[in-house]
């Protein structure tokens, strides 16, 4: 339940930074926070109190945490980082033309 609250708070915070802030870099930060909230929720939710999903040499099989959501989250993190990098590159490129990163001063983003 606590994790759900944290997820909602962080998700909304990220969305707030994405939607309400006029600074483009802040928007990307918001996106990052939003994605991180989802990843956090997934990991926290899939934690059933087992062990880290790595077998120890010479020990028998014991109760593990579910490895599949962790693997999926790993993929998600890498993809999120790549998209953020691309987005930041585009912001740099846009800044070459506009000399600003304030969304209010860039008309073209609105239409």
């Amino acid at each position, binding site marked *: 339940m606590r994790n759900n609250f944290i997820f909602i708070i962080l998700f909304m915070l990220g969305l707030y930074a994405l939607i309400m802030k006029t600074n483009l870099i802040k928007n990307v930060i918001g996106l990052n926070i939003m994605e991180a909230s989802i990843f956090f929720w997934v990991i926290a939710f899939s934690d059933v109190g*087992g062990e880290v999903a790595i077998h120890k040499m010479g020990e028998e099989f014991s109760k593990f945490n579910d490895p599949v959501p962790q693997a999926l989250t790993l993929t998600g993190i890498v993809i999120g980082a790549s998209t953020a990098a691309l987005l930041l590159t585009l912001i740099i490129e846009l800044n070459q033309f506009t000399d600003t990163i304030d969304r209010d001063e860039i008309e073209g983003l609105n239409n």
Partner: protein
Amino acid sequence: MHKYLKKTLVISVFILTAIALYENFLLVPEYTGLRTGVSDYIISSGLSDTGSLNLITAVLYDYRAFDSLGESTVIFGAVSGIVLILSRKMLPVSSRGLSFIVKRTFGLVTPFIALFSLYVITHGHLSPGGGFQGGVILAVISIIFSIVYGSAFDYRRYSPQVKTAMETMGAFTFLGLGVVGILMEGFFLKNLGFLTARTGTLISAGSIPYVNFGVGIKVGAGLAIIFYSMIQKTFKEDF
């Protein structure tokens, strides 16, 4: 006034959405895990199937290796896109960097960082880590070269061409292992059983270490190219 109105609107919508999400989360049952399904099977027989101690690596590079191929292609696409978008910039090479104290002391540390990255890559199936994480640490070396010694040093040592070649090599290692899987075992990306040694050694787990190595090189080179493209000084006039 209009600004405050907008802010009020946004915040009220957010409160609504938060309530909606909360309502729906109330319905989601607690995850007890390990019910009859995929995870149960993977936990119980993942080690014997793949030979990888790290089950997450087993999932990433054996059960769902195709996802990882797609994921590394995402990085590849991002690299291509970023290089494409920022390629008009000329590089005024500079070797100012930070003070020489930092430069020299950093030199003492760098080989160990590289070694650590190789450790993370090669121990992907034994301990936490794997191709992606190790690759990022590998990229960090290139990043820190540009930071500490100036971009000229990085350019001189590992030019973008070399990095591109390394990236292609890594990608083809992955893809080639998949195709070898077709040829030898009958399925794309099937784990190569004849490579498996005793569990717990570095060369166990079939083709997973090799895939890890390919991904590591690819990710390291790709992210280094990304950073290298992004720190270049930009000019407005030329292209």
